[in-house]
Structure formats: structure tokens, C-alpha cells
């Protein structure tokens, strides 16, 4: 349970908003739940709803609306390549396609070992450093700019090695 495992973090999140506006904490709490459970199942959604006094349906609609929440499991690491117009003008589409080919997955799919999902996303405000992607992993989201397929594969390999050591 989140309330048992993270009482201090939950309290710190709630403290940001007026006491009668607990609902504002729902989005940060969903990130916390996603970190804990990997994805946001109905159980996770219900648990978050209980913390802020919302119906699970209302919380689930947020999960569906916002792209950084995931209601089904994907790879532990999501490589989210920006293929929007400014990046596409600088080679992002061929970068994304070639990366998929090297990983032997189609866009949106996860590698057989469950490690990496490759996804296309909209503008990430890094247009002057294309090709680029963000790495969404349980502990956060990190930008990787001025990428080549080689550098992306090297990062994925480094993550695999790190996980084996851990």
C-alpha cells in the first residue's frame, strides 16, 4: 500500500495544496503509484482515488487522458522518440525506424525480455537536438539528445548491464 510505504512522500505532496483542495494531488500521486507498481491497474487507481477522495472512474479518466500514465504494462524502459515535425525535418523518423529494426520490434512494441518499449511521441521541446528521445523509467523521465542509433543501443545495453548487476 502506498499509504504504508510512502507516508512522508504522500504528506509532502498533499502539503502543496490547500487542505480543501486535495484533488490537486491526484496527478503527483499517480506518478508515485506508477513508480511503485509499474503501471496503473484498476487497484492502483482505486488506491489513489481513496487518498484524495475521488471515484476510481474519475481517476481512470485522468490515466486515459494524460500520455505519461500507462494503464497496461510495457517495457521497464520506454524509449519515447519525438517524430514531430521539427525533429522529422532532422532525421528523427529514420532514426526511430532504424532503432526499431535493430531491436527487432515494431513501433509501440516491447522487446521479448520485457526491457524496452519503443514509442513515438509528440514534441518534447528539444527540436534543436534531434534526433532525441526521452527515457521513461520507474524513477522518472530523462532526455537523451543528439542521438544516433548507435548511442541509443549503447544506452539500452548499459541499462541491461546495470539491471543485471542490481
Amino acid at each position, binding site marked *: 500500500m502506498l499509504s504504508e510505504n510512502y507516508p512522508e512522500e504522500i504528506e509532502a505532496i498533499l502539503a502543496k495544496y490547500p487542505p480543501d483542495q486535495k*484533488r490537486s494531488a491526484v496527478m503527483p500521486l499517480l506518478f508515485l503509484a506508477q513508480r511503485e507498481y509499474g503501471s496503473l491497474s484498476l487497484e492502483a487507481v482505486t488506491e489513489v482515488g481513496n487518498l484524495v477522495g475521488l471515484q476510481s472512474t474519475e481517476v481512470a479518466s*485522468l490515466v486515459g487522458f494524460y500520455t505519461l500514465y500507462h494503464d497496461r504494462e510495457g517495457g521497464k524502459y520506454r524509449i519515447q522518440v519525438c517524430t514531430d*515535425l521539427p525533429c522529422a525535418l532532422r532525421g528523427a523518423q529514420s532514426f526511430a525506424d532504424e532503432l526499431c529494426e535493430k531491436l527487432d520490434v515494431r513501433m509501440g512494441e516491447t522487446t521479448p525480455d520485457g526491457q524496452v518499449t519503443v514509442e513515438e511521441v509528440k514534441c518534447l*521541446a528539444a527540436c*534543436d537536438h534531434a534526433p532525441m528521445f526521452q527515457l521513461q523509467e520507474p524513477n522518472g*523521465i530523462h532526455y537523451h539528445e543528439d542521438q544516433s542509433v548507435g548511442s541509443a543501443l549503447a544506452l539500452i545495453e548499459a541499462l541491461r548491464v546495470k539491471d543485471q548487476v542490481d
Partner: protein
Amino acid sequence: MTEHVVLRHRDIEGLDQLDTYLENGGFKAFKSIVTKKSPQQVINLVKKSGLRGRGGAGFPTGVKWSFLTPDVFPRYVVANADESEPGTFKDREIMERNPFQFLEGVAICAYAAQASVAYIYCRGEFWDLTKELDRKIEELKERGLVGKKLFDSDYSLEMYTHLGAGAYICGEETALLESLEGKLGQPRLRPPFPAAEGLFAKPTVVNNVETLTNLPPIIERGANWYASIGTEKSTGTKVFSISGNVERPGNYELPLGTSFRELIYEHAGGIPNNLAIKAILPAGASAPILPATEEVLDTGMDYESVPEVGSSLGSASIIVIDETVDIPWVESKITDFFEHESCGKCTPCRDGTYWMKNIFGRVMDDSAQPQEIDLLYTVGIGIQGKCLCALGDFAALAVTSAVERFRPEFDLHVVEDSSKAA
């Protein structure tokens, strides 16, 4: 132009460290207003500077503040750091490299608005940046620059970051407020405007990151100094984000009114491989596309001149398109974007972008019927002026302007008329 107003970190090394920022005059402006000026004096000064909102709408900042409903408290200030317009990447550089000037700007705005709580709404993708801002806010608290009874006055201020979770529409200020209240990021019907009923139904100011970052130098150096930069109605500098087919994409801070030609050819190094320029998107995806004629290239990038040639400056994210790029492909990408980002609240936008995307699917397959280009145009016209926020208009204007200005390129994508072939 040699001196930066907003991108000062490019002139001063280590400006993202609090000690360096303070050594270079940091927080003098905030301290001076809290100890010596009334909120109304600050509003008047910002009005006089001519500063206009840098997020896209270009609305005069001081005027926006003066709309706050009198005598209703608490009030809130929200920094809009949901930078998501394709081609815009200025706020990210400001917050990463010159964070304290931005935070001082938030503090100045909060004082002028008589708000004791300010939220910084960052797009969820700015995860690492937001964690860093949290640490910077802690440092400000430790030094007594944010917190209770500042500089021995009665003024207290708390600042909090809030992460979005992936939704372009949350850059629209009322959708942002909905999101900050823990709801779907969908725009509100206006009026009431946020200055009357904003966050938690209280009077609220929402300002863009770049707008706020302009405030400390305006306070310190005066409204006249600021108004002397730029043009008469578009004062000050602007951070232009330039991307696409140029040698040196990036942010360039220049006076408003600088020509497209100077930005593209002098600062960004021109078009790679000696290719010719074909078109310019002056405001990311959110403005009509401009053919890169000599007249357009010589146009000043300010809030008055760009509309005169048939587009708008918006957040000044210039996407450059060279002669090899197919304009229908550009518009299909833009339509994909808006179809994905439409929040779904207004039917013309939700369904219209979906229709346009479907037609573009056939256009890009070269399987569209000749009349479908007209249909595309008609759907675009059908969206315009019928939605709660500007997203629908932007999606439609991108397409209708391209069909009007680059029609022959669209006609190359339709199937041949079989009756004529015989």
C-alpha cells in the same frame, strides 16, 4: 545585439548557481519592490514597459494583472512551464540555465498580484528539470528569499512546482488550471477569466516562463530602458527558437522586430546544402504557413508585422522548410499533432482534426480523389471560430493556409482523373 536580457546565462558563467546569481544583482529587484513599492506601482511599471505575454497570445502583461478582481483573496500566480508547441524550446533553456532569474520573476509577479502562493506548472516530460527547480526553491527558502515575512515586511510567499503528465492542451491557461486542480486538461468557458475566477475559483495570474523572466531586469533597469528595445508596440527582446532546415538550430535572443532573414541567414547560418528556402512556420504548428518570399523574409518578427503578411508570431518558434520538403507532408504532420492533442471537449475540433487526418492519410498515399483537397479545406473552415480555445483554429488554419498558398503541391497527390486520361 550583444547583451542578453533573458538568456543572461550566455553572458555570465555559472548563473544557475545562487551565489553567482546574487553576485550579479540577483533578487535586488524583488527586494526593492517588497520594501519600497506597492503592488500597484509594480503593475504600472510593467504596463509602461510594454511587456507582452511570451507564451503566444502577446497580451500586455501589466494589463492582464490589472484585471484581478479587487479585494478578493487568496490569489494565485501560476507560471506556465508547459512548453509543448512544436518548435518551441526556449522556456526549457531558461529554466535549466537561468533558473533564479525565472524564479525571481515568479516572485515579482506574485508580489504585484498580492498572491502568497505561486505554482510552477511544468510539463511532465520536464521531470529532471522540475526536480532541480525544487532544489533551487529550497535554496531560496534557506536564504530567506522565499518564505514568511520577507525582508522584514508583511509579505509572505510560498512556491511549489507541479508536474503535468503529457498533454499539449495544458499550455492553454484555463486547461492548465483544470489540470492543476486534478482534472482533465480541458479549457474552460470564458468569462470568467482567470483574473476573476482562476485556480480554485480565486483570482489568478497565469504567465509564461519567458514573460516572468523578463521582470527582474525591467524592475531593475526601468520601463523606459525596456521600451527602448524592439519596436514601438512590441517592446523588448524575444527568444526565438529556430528549428528545421537550418545550419544552426537553437535559441537566439534578439530585439522584437528583427527580420526573418537576419534570424535565418545570419544567426542560424542559413539553409544546409545551399538549398533554397520554401516556407516558414513562424509560430510552430500554431499559425498559417508562410511562403518564404522576399517580402516575408524582410518582415520584422513582432506582434504587428507578422500578421500583416498573413500569419502570427505566437511563441516565436520558427520552423524553416527547404525546397525539397513536400508541403502536404508538413501539413499531415501538423494535423497528426493536433488530432492527437485535441482534448476532445469541442466537437468541431475533436471530429474535424480526425477527419482531416483521415483525408491526409489518402493524400500521403496519393490515393485522394481530386475533390478531397476541397473537402480538406472545407473541414478546416468548418472548425474555425467554433471552439472554446484556439487549438481548433490553429489546426484548421495550418491546413487552410497551406491549401490556399501551396495548392499545386496538394494536387500532385490526387489520383488522376480517369475521364481526362481517355
